[in-house]
């Protein structure tokens, strides 16, 4: 879904001019996507909070440097990814840049500690199935589940992943998700 580029351009322009309402609108528009990146890297809640905040503090001083406002989403995704990688590396987890697929799962609270908030059985089953996927699949889907959803370009920047491999990987991950969902719904009867 293409971003409303002229809308973003106008908001960036207004924020540059000092209008805090425009800034709030940018936060509302892109906040979910930045948060999804933080969570996709499986940071603790406190680390995710820090990354989320520092990304926006960076942006405040970089508004002038973002010449093409349609690149804002990609800029936010890249910045969030780098901050996540810094924290992961600082925590002593060896993560070569560009090899995020090698990340393991540091905390076992993925996909999130608040599964109790899910309103329907179906939603709970989906969430459980998501949590049973490979780290690579969880990371991709978590980024793509932001609301509003990111463009493929933003996903690419958020994960250091070629645009061309996003669609096929998403398809494969959803295929796995369906299998997990099947065994959850089947109560595990078929697995013994």
């Amino acid at each position, binding site marked *: 879904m293409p971003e409303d580029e002229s809308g973003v351009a106008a908001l960036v322009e207004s924020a540059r001019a000092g209008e805090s309402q425009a*800034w709030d609108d940018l936060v509302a528009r892109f906040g979910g996507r930045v948060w999804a990146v933080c969570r996709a890297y499986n940071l603790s809640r406190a680390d995710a909070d820090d990354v989320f905040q520092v990304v926006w503090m960076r942006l405040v001083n970089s508004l002038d440097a973002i010449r093409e406002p349609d690149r804002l989403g990609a800029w936010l995704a890249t910045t969030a990814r780098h901050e996540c990688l810094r924290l992961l590396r600082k925590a002593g987890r060896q993560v070569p840049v560009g090899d995020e697929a090698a990340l393991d799962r540091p905390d076992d609270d993925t996909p999130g500690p608040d599964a109790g908030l899910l309103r329907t059985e179906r*939603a709970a089953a989906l969430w459980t199935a998501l949590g049973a996927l490979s780290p690579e699949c969880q990371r991709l889907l978590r980024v793509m589940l932001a609301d509003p959803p990111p463009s493929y370009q933003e996903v690419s920047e958020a994960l250091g992943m070629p645009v061309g491999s996003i669609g096929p990987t998403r398809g494969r991950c959803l295929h796995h998700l369906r299998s997990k969902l099947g065994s959850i719904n089947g109560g595990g009867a078929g697995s013994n």
Partner: protein
Amino acid sequence: MNDDAGLGGGPGAHDDDAVMAELRQAAGQADPLPAESVAAARAAFAWRTLDAELARLAYDSLLEDQPLAGVRGVGTPRLLTFEAAGLTVEVEAAGEGPERRLLGQLVPPQPGRVELRHRGGPATVKADGMGRFAFPGVLPGPVSLRCDPASGAGTVCTDWFLT
């Protein structure tokens, strides 16, 4: 393009989109963007730097170095370089836990005043004749340095970074 290329007879792209929509709703319920985070992002606007030049992060050993497994010790300090037109700020960040410390130097070397902005509130120290300065007791979270070189070259603020 068929999202399920190669899976042979799997559900189509339409079904994938439907599952993604359901998952998106679940994610919105189980892991919503916290209201405090939104508030912090909005408040960031107050940190707009209008009266100083921005020194951009040009180097961060944490990102740039390709550590060999087992070589990089836990205590290895992290080095960061921030560059503005007339001034470079070199920073070494060390320490863990609730308090960290920053050692830094203004380049070219010169005395001046350096203000630390962090969650503990602002703190100011003098840079010595070599441009060196130190901040103990830096709290975790976003950090930036505001540097006033004595040469009168103009105030420089570094990009925000996480210690």
